[in-house]
């Protein structure tokens, strides 16, 4: 073949072109992709409206509830309670977004364009993940800020407002945004692994919503022991104050006592394992 190489015309020199594949360029490409489909706008929109709306509605329910002595809920004085409830539902929207970010490329065939542009493959996965995490973290910060601000505005007089001057409050508030971004990433990892929208979304909803109910209600020892290590349950430790965590640890049937960051670490471990397997398979499988 060496003779053939020698006769190759070099009129068209690619070396002179400034175009070059780089990670920064990939991030830019993924950023354009992320914001140019409707599913992003829809899921983030639903997330923002649902989270902020639920914080206000649940706060309203709290201040109108009878006191615990009169049979009301025990945590009606907990200023973070409404946000936690809202996040439990709002996380479903970011989970759907996380899965769709990657599975929609497989269902439409777009992944072939993406992997042709970046044939080393793994940078595609990482850049997508970074864009998703940054966007969801930003949206979650907005939701947390708007929800708690409205809560303070409407219900401060009823004693149900988040005290922003309390340093113990900052970690759960920012932690909520961190948790939501991580859940989006966990869902993304499942999507990358399964390459199928419905399968990935069903799995992540099962782990976040159904598994905690099943594991918490079935009185079988192994399930009871696994319960604190479910991704949603463990990760949500980060959204609670240390005081709340102490109360929860005291009532744990198995004496589980994970700190906020230990709990979050468990969620990160889930993400690392699933994303790691997805990365290996992305490298190995045909696209």
């Amino acid at each position: 073949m060496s003779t053939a190489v020698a006769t190759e015309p070099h009129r068209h020199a690619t070396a002179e072109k400034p175009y070059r594949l780089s990670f920064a360029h990939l991030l830019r490409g993924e950023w354009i992709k992320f914001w140019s489909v409707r599913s992003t706008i829809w899921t983030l929109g639903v997330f923002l409206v649902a989270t902020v709306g639920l914080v206000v509605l649940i706060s309203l329910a709290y201040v109108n509830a009878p006191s615990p002595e009169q049979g009301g809920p025990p945590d009606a004085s907990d200023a973070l309670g409404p946000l936690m409830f809202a996040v439990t539902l709002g996380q479903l929207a970011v989970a759907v977004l996380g899965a769709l970010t990657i599975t929609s490329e497989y269902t439409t065939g777009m992944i072939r364009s993406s992997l042709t542009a970046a044939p080393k493959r793994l940078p595609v996965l990482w850049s997508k993940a970074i864009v998703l995490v940054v966007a969801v973290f930003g949206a979650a910060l907005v939701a947390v800020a708007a929800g708690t601000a409205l809560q303070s505005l409407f219900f401060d007089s009823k004693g149900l407002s988040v005290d922003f001057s309390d340093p113990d409050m900052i970690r759960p508030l920012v932690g909520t945004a961190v948790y939501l971004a991580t859940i989006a990433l966990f869902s993304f990892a499942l999507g990358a692994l399964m390459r199928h929208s419905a399968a990935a979304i069903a799995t992540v909803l099962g782990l976040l919503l159904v598994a905690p109910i099943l594991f918490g209600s079935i009185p079988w020892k192994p399930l009871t022991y696994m319960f604190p290590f479910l991704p949603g349950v463990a990760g949500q430790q980060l959204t609670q104050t240390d005081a709340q965590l102490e109360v929860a640890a005291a009532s744990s049937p198995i004496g589980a006592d994970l700190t906020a960051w230990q709990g979050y670490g468990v969620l990160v471990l889930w993400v690392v394992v699933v994303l790691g397997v997805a990365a290996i398979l992305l490298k190995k499988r045909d696209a």
Partner: protein
Amino acid sequence: MIEAHDLTKRYGTKLAVDGISFTVQPGRVTGFLGPNGAGKSTTMRMIVGLDKPTHGSVTVNGKRYAEHHSPLTQVGALLEAKAVHTGRSARNHLRAIAATHGIGDKRVNEVISMTGLDTVAKRRVGGFSLGMGQRLGIAAALVGDPQTLILDEPVNGLDPEGVLWVRNLVKYLAASEGRTIFLSSHLMSEMAVTADHLIVIGRGKIIADGPVDSVIAQATRATVRVRSPQATDLAARLAGPAVTVTPAEDGLLEIHGATAVEVGEIAAKHGFVLHELTPMSGSLEEAYMSLTSESVEYHSAALPGEESAPHGAHAATAAPTTGEDAR
């Protein structure tokens, strides 16, 4: 330049591509011809690294595709299946792909105009017709201004104007700019007017590799097949300035430039025993059919001037006919 060496792809038990070796040279349009399922798309997917070869290797300009620092300026590929998110507009699709290589909107607008997508660029791709989708695929392939262009069935679904445009574009890029063009099709007629060089593939194996003229000439020239126990002597008797005799296998001759009538009469005059005398000729379409169906022996003959000899000849014996001109 694309160089494939012993390229093999196996899906489960099915051998889609069976140890093929070929070279696609710059400066000319190389057609990749074969029936559906022959392995064209799989081969092209392996070139850009979407499928991993089970065995063998393929390089573009001396390196595996994935090892290039700027893949999209090396190779632009339009592959068979749609590879576009249906919810995204054509323009954003191209912008996203271009952005991965730091290619700006100026070039994106250029390829949109080139491919005639101006009026629909802001529409979502999901509503595109087959032809529009094809134009978008070509636009995506061109966005990096690539050295090598790989187009899988590019004229599929295009209107006559689009077909002509693709034909002129690839010819221009190859002839005037010295780029490498690798074009697949199952339409022999389109290939005949577009390609300079043909690689014909069937059931995962290459059955012809040569300049278009010689592939067509080889496949359509009237050939007479003679089987005789005295083949060597008969060959000497038949050969002449206008007649070429190619010994194919033991006792079998292929004769170009003489009719079956002439061959039969010469044989009778000199008392040669014939076991078979078959006149063979065909139209372009027939030639293609016979090239790509394994039961015919055309693929056993090496094309003149080609280093890569086709695979082992296993000629199926046609029903012997004697003496008469079967036409």
